């Protein structure tokens, strides 16, 4: 199955990239930009041998996120699973 993971800086954690981009956009003429948060988008396929239930896949992807893809100390993550 297809997995799409979105990682963003945790609420309350400083996001220096977001702050800097937020300051830069008005200089290009875009007014009213706030709350810029810059994260990561990760796509992968997960097809363990022998198949996997949707529930198990969610558990596994959550584990991947916690242990490697995201840094739970400073980042939040969400993910979507797509059969096929």
């Amino acid at each position, binding site marked *: 199955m297809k997995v799409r993971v979105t990682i963003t800086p945790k609420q309350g954690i400083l996001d220096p990239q977001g*702050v800097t981009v937020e300051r830069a956009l008005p200089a290009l003429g875009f007014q009213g930009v706030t709350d810029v948060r810059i994260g990561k988008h990760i796509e992968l396929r997960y097809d363990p041998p022998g198949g996997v239930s949707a529930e198990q896949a969610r558990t596994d992807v959550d584990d991947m996120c916690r242990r490697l893809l995201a840094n739970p100390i400073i980042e939040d993550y969400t993910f979507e699973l797509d059969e096929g």
Partner: protein
Amino acid sequence: MTRRADLAAAEALGLTAEEYAKICEIQGGEPTYVELAIYSLMWSEHCSYKHSRPVLGRFPTSGPRILQGPGENAGVIDVGDGWAVAMKVESHNHPSAVEPFQGAATGVGGIVRDIFTMGARPCVSLDSLRFGELSEPRQRFLLDGVVGGIAHYGNCLGIPTVGGEIYFEPSYEGNCLVNAMSAGLIRADDIVRAVAAGVGNHVVLIGSKTGRDGIGGASVLASQEFDETLEEKRPSVQVGDPFTEKKLIEACLELLNDHHVVSMQDLGAAGLTSSSSEMASKGFVGLDIHADRVPLREADMEPWEIMISESQERMLAIVEPAKLETVQGICERWDLDCTVIGEVTDTKMLRIHWHGEVVGDIPARRLADESPVIRTPSVKPDYLVDEPVAVDDASYPPPKDLGAALAELLAAPNIASKRWAWEQYDYIVQANTVQIPGSDAAVLRIKGTGRGIAFANDCNGRHCYLDPYRGAKAAVAEAARNLSCAGALPVAVTDCLNFGNPEKGEIYWQFEQAVEGIAEACEALDTPVVSGNVSFYNESFGQAIYPTPMIGMLGIYDDVDIHLDGAFKDEGDVIVLLGPPAGFVDGSEYQKVHYGRVEGRVPDVDLALEVRLQAAVREAVARRLLKSAHDCAEGGLAVALAESAIASGAPGGAQWTDPAAAKPERSGRWLGADVTIGAVERPDLALFGEAPSRVVVTCAPGDLEAVHALAGDLPFAVLGVVTGESLRCTMGDEELLALPVSELHGVYESLPDRLA
């Protein structure tokens, strides 16, 4: 109606009943929550040094070159021609154990702010790191994160990271050490002290917005041992923003050097609380702080949160009303927030306002000066011994193959080249680097003068564990020796004293002993302690780290052109061992690597001998009599010789463009050595055993006599000559080992293999 805090609240914040009673006495009744939060942080170990203060008074802290000793953001040393160096080291151990990348990054950010707060432009960083053994995946993760974080932050700031040290011992497994040192250059007349002055002046906050970063962070983290609750402390991790810090450096140096501000203080541990109370206390004035005026990153922050937030990249400045517009203009130019959040008063009170209400009102001096002092009764630990190890064949059988033993030592993570780490650091930016990482000392020039400065970091934690007094003394002696080998005159020390829980008698004993050792060595070597940091509670699950009093030392050159490195230079040069020939197994790397043991009685430094030895080496360097000089430390004589041979491939402090290459660039060939040691029963100890006060030097044959004359009655042994492309050691007719330098280079550069 402002809430009052009772004893239960105080205890929840880590204060004792006695401390709470004292607070009530100072406040004339129960404190408010804001007041209690402020006391709990300011009276934490991290901010108050309550366990260490009574002992630290032992250090020599003054001298003719010392312009500023301990008590300011950094110590300042006169280095000649009107130039001065501000320097300090600080630990960021616990934050780095929680989140290695950000922990180390913010550690660099904090120490750099200490330097430019004085008005000095930060010109150098060094980092002294300790981890558990690399065989553990968690330790490799920590190493990778810490080095990456230092690189990320320091490189972005444009401050060269020119040196440091990395050691691996099981005792650091649950509690890595990250000691970040920085130094800056300043005109001696331009030093700015963090003292509030001028009733009616503005209190201005410059830099990042305030969030809930590190609430209870450094202060609480640094005052408690690690245990299972570690996970819960995670949300308080601070994220560093080196881009904002870089802008802060430029803006603040302009503000300070052009005298647009009265004074400045960085916001470190305990944030606005400690910076404002310290500035008020030192200036014998009061400060009114309007917490509701502080620009926030997160809505709905409580005043106590704002007061103790440890959001990074913020500075507090005292500004005369007439200069406010100029200050705001400079900050605007650098896209930095600059907000008036209060004013200087004559009340001598730190008063916190919140939307028109006074929520805290504390006598600034009593907050800063009347923190409790605790002296734990010290107890000598049971594991210490009074005699050196008896090296009999039964317990320490000599190795059959001394060449293999040498290779094993060169590959040991504590000895092997740390190129993997320092190639991640920009060590050349600012165009002052004369001697790059990888040798005894880092050397920089001072632009526009012929002068130079040199830095070394040293501490052998294993020695300090076996004998904290001797180990700490040896750390000072070794740092000075490293500088002397480079030809620099050692002049001052900054120290980072990393220990376990000081409430335990054994730990307190280690601390007292180490301080005594440092003090004696600094007195003998004439290197006063100008700044430093104490980090206690370096324990995990009740297991303390090796006592690790890390010494950062500054050396100076009147003429930096004389600087010297440890690389063999020319075929036929004579190799001399200056200092006592005997090496000991006690506490040595050889003991750990080859025998898997840590025991015995480490040799004591003879300070009188050390002083004479270093003076002779410096004099010989200054007269250009030496071709190389290299401290003989971990791994003993054989490793020192091997390192000089390996470095020969890169003359003049250059390095291989391709670290994997088997052949050095440009010089075309390696320089080996042929050396002979005197007849001894245990040649392995002569080669690999360790002892203080030893330096391996080389000189042209024609200069040998002059070098010998300079050495006077110092132990002086001609070992052999620089020759060939192999390192060959013999004892009489017996060949002890012979290995091609290319092979030694291969194992010396093998650290990356252990990180894969």
